């Protein structure tokens, strides 16, 4: 759906207005209603800052997309209630990419040339990011992605692409390997999807576990078209100490259930990426066997005992309860582990625009925005960054932060270890700043 402007109370509707904010550009009506009224009127222009949300509204990324949209709506409301960006309200225009790289590139073109947005943002699936990024670079459109793949950090894209709101897979797996090796075991069998995202896990986690003196007992790659996994599970060797799983896509629930049926009452230690169960209720029948297994979480789904005031605020604004479900529908489980990246990315955009004094879409303003984003070195934990503090590398356009290891206890995910930022650092070889603007 295009031409959509975020409207928090009712989600997204076409050509609707964010709390009356989008209409501020023309009508002035919203200006009378919002706290940012004075600041908007003092800005050099009251034209909204246009952010294009490239959304997986349909296709295999739709469950993530639904929540990426809600988080965006909530973050934009907070930004606009606080006076917008440089005194200008934020307007979000949504286009569905169908989780398809071809359509993704078309959407980027539409953002740049038809909607004329200031920034495109939001994409999750790696193939859509990589299919779209060349066009963003060629059209000189800043493109802020909320993916996890190593593509931004590796330097394979271009200077206009940033990932300031969520860590990359490489950083995630190397941060957790020491804890897994020390607490769960050193002989690991990995089950992963047989495509690029899974291969990043395979390569970087294998490397990291070996660095800890561990070994990979088996690599079980699941073809992407697979819908049943029973024939792969016997490949797990009996001397496996830790089973590492990461699965994505529509068949994840089947995978986890079949894993339980295969092991019965006897199993090795199990460590999974929450991707295998993102947006899935832990209380789903047949998932009981996950009790006492471990998961990686980018952001803990269940409110913890030591919940920060920032997480509390973020949950409330996004409409997620203490169990990670929608406050309006207990069956609607959020993609809590990933979706904070949208919230934090929007505040990173705001920070860079304010630092550069961004006023409009002149080449000078855009250049200033890119350089200001590259100049960011850290994000402090706070309302803008509820998942925790992060450091940002301006050379490879990638942030680095904390990871959470959670244990399934009484049907909840309880955080048992939080990694330090340093645990996820690796030698960076990419340098986008050497590319021309």
């Amino acid at each position, binding site marked *: 759906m295009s031409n959509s402007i975020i409207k928090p109370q009712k989600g997204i509707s076409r050509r609707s207005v964010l709390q009356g904010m989008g209409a501020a550009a023309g009508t002035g009506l919203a200006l009378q209603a919002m706290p940012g009224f004075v600041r908007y009127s003092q800005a050099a222009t009251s034209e909204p800052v246009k952010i294009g949300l490239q959304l997986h509204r349909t296709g295999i990324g739709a469950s993530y997309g639904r929540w990426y949209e809600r988080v965006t709506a909530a973050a934009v409301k907070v930004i606009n209630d606080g006076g917008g960006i440089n005194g200008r309200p934020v307007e979000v225009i949504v286009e*569905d990419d169908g989780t398809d790289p071809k359509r993704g590139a078309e959407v980027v073109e539409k953002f740049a*040339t*038809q909607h004329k947005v200031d920034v495109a943002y939001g994409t999750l699936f*790696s193939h859509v990011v990589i299919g779209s990024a060349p066009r963003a670079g060629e059209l000189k459109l800043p493109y802020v992605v909320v993916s996890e*793949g190593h593509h931004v950090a590796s330097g*394979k894209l271009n200077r206009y692409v940033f990932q300031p709101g969520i860590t990359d897979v490489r950083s995630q797996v190397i941060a957790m390997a020491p804890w897994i090796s020390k607490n769960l075991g050193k002989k690991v069998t990995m089950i992963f999807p047989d495509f690029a*995202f899974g291969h990043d896990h395979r390569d970087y986690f294998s490397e990291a576990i070996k660095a800890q003196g561990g070994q990979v007992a088996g690599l079980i790659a699941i073809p992407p078209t697979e819908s049943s996994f029973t024939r792969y599970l016997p490949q797990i060797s009996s001397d496996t100490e830790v089973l590492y799983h990461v699965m994505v896509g529509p068949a994840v629930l089947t995978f986890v259930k079949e894993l339980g049926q295969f092991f019965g009452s006897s199993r090795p230690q199990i460590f999974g990426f929450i991707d295998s169960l993102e947006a899935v209720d832990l209380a789903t029948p047949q998932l009981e066997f996950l009790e006492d297994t471990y998961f990686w979480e980018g952001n803990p789904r269940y409110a913890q005992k030591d919940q920060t005031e920032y997480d509390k605020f973020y949950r409330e604004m996004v409409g997620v309860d203490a169990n990670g479900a929608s406050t309006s529908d207990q069956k609607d489980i959020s993609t809590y582990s990933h979706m904070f990246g949208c919230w934090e990315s929007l505040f990173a955009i705001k920070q860079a625009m304010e630092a550069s004094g961004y006023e409009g879409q002149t080449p000078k303003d855009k250049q200033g925005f890119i350089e200001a984003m590259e100049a960011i070195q850290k994000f402090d934990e706070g309302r803008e960054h509820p998942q925790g503090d992060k450091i940002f590398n301006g050379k490879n356009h990638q942030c680095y932060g904390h990871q959470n290891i959670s244990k399934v206890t009484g049907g909840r995910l309880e955080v048992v270890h939080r990694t330090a930022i340093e645990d996820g650092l690796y030698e960076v070889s990419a340098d986008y700043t050497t590319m021309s603007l």
Partner: protein
Amino acid sequence: MTAPSFTKAAGLHLLVIMSLFVLQFVLPAYHHLAITRIMVLAVFAMGYNLLFGYAGLLSLGHALFFAAGLYGAGLTAYHLGWSVPAAFVAGTGSGFLASLLIGLISLRTSGVAFMIVTMMFAQVSYLASLYFTTYTRGDEGLVMPQAARRFELFGANFDLTDPTVRYNIALALLTLTTVVIFAIVRGTTGRTLVAIRENEPRTLMLGYDTFRIKLKALVISGTLSAMAGSAYALLFAYVGSSFASIQYSIDALLFTLLGGAGTVLGPLLGTFAMFYMIDIASEYTAAYLLITGLALIALVLFFPKGIVGTIRERWVSWLP
């Protein structure tokens, strides 16, 4: 086709090409970019139509040929650093070889079996593109390097990041494809293909080597599809396995059905209509594919010959 009708038909196709050339000077930026993509995909659909529309061979494996071009051009440019023209030739050549090989095998079947065999070959190529991740990065895909974005030909420099250059390259490929298809369907081969489509045993009985003629059609069709794939990789800088998935075989079929199978301009019009149907419908609802599906059902029910096919049937009988 008589001489006057030839003149009319040739004039119409020339007019379409000239209109597309002129359009670039008046189109808003977004539509300029959109039509560039449409023209590249239309080359794919026109190639598909030669086999499906004229020879009556329903292939569900044409994404393989598009992907052969995509990867043939993309991998040589990415890993071997080949120049744009060399990579383009490599991609198109890959499609030629793939279609020749697959044609020799799959044309031993017909009807539903042909459809299934071609689909299976395409599925193998799709999974192969995922399997060899080291080279292809599978579903994630590859971004073409800067060297593959510029080239020199006959002393002139071309920058593929320039929308005007890209538009005119796409137009040149579309023109070439139109000329090739037009010449084929007006010539003996085209007539024979239609004869095979209508009654293959009878055509065989008349002394034609139908296997050879079908193979020729499949190779030309596959090579044109690969040419579109090569162009896509180089013009839009991305190579990924989703283009080898069955969805893209079906896309070519739908473009053709919508525009009119067995007409030269039908696939171009079908690609254009499908692109904008999705683009506009998605502005109103997330269920835009439902709208597209309903439109296709209505088409099959009321205009089974597609847009151009219906026009030809009812009003303009000289359309090739």
